[in-house]
């Protein structure tokens, strides 16, 4: 059960009409290390993981959906008023041919999202290390996206999202420590 708040986790302001960035941002929308892949990966892995770390996966998955919404907002703002010529110049001609101005879960190269991007191994350490790697890859993707735009407003939102990936990776590392050390058993009062 979820409660939806009709606002973004962090404000998304786009200060420059740069349709090109819409295409590159799709890497974080429907790419292998994107927010959709992250959200679905954790939301699925949480069922077969020790009780102590289920909540971490649920919480982070939920936040990834909030990030997905931010990325969608960026892409939509950048494309909603774009002419066909502008879309074609940005490499989004094929997207227009298929679906007008609609968004779709695909990466920057136009490859549609696939469930093969994510894994569930059923071994808690294997799954958590996959999750840590996914967060670091998403952090790197955000860095390259920040590098590709000179729009400081867009950079601001992307920097927020990048920092969240760093915090998530730490939370997964802590989950690993909890499973390794069985922390509760060691505690003496």
């Amino acid at each position, binding site marked *: 059960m979820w409660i939806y708040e009709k606002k973004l986790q*962090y404000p998304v302001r786009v200060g420059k009409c740069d349709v090109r960035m819409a295409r590159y941002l799709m890497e974080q929308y429907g790419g292998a290390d994107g927010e959709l892949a992250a959200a679905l990966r954790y939301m699925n892995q949480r069922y077969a993981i020790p009780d102590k770390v289920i909540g971490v996966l649920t919480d982070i998955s939920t936040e990834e959906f909030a990030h997905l919404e931010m990325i969608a907002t960026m892409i939509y703002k950048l494309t909603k008023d774009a002419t066909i010529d502008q879309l074609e110049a940005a490499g989004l001609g094929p997207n227009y041919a298929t679906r007008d101005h609609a968004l779709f879960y695909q990466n920057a190269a136009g490859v549609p999202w696939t469930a093969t991007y994510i894994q569930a191994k059923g071994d808690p350490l294997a799954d958590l290390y996959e999750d840590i790697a996914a967060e670091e890859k998403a*952090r790197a993707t*955000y*860095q390259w996206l*920040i*590098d*590709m*735009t*000179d*729009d*400081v407003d867009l*950079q601001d939102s992307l*920097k*927020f*999202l*990048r*920092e*969240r990936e*760093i*915090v998530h*990776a*730490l939370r997964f*590392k*802590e989950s690993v*420590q909890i499973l390794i050390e069985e922390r509760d058993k060691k505690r003496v009062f």
Partner: protein
Amino acid sequence: MNSQERVWTPYRGPFDPCPPVPFKTYVVPPNQFINFQPPNLPQFTLPEALKAGTLWPALFSPYESKSKGGK
């Protein structure tokens, strides 16, 4: 350059076709030095925390765009 940045020099061959890059960088964020966050770390104020993306300065990782318009 901030303390989370690392620099390395790629190999430069005698017959490389393009002008060489002098060095490359990568970021080592603070999560690499913390295995388990200790309690009672100093916190940002709430507006600062929203802007930073984290409540704790110890977890904050700055990143500036390599694009010219970056701050």
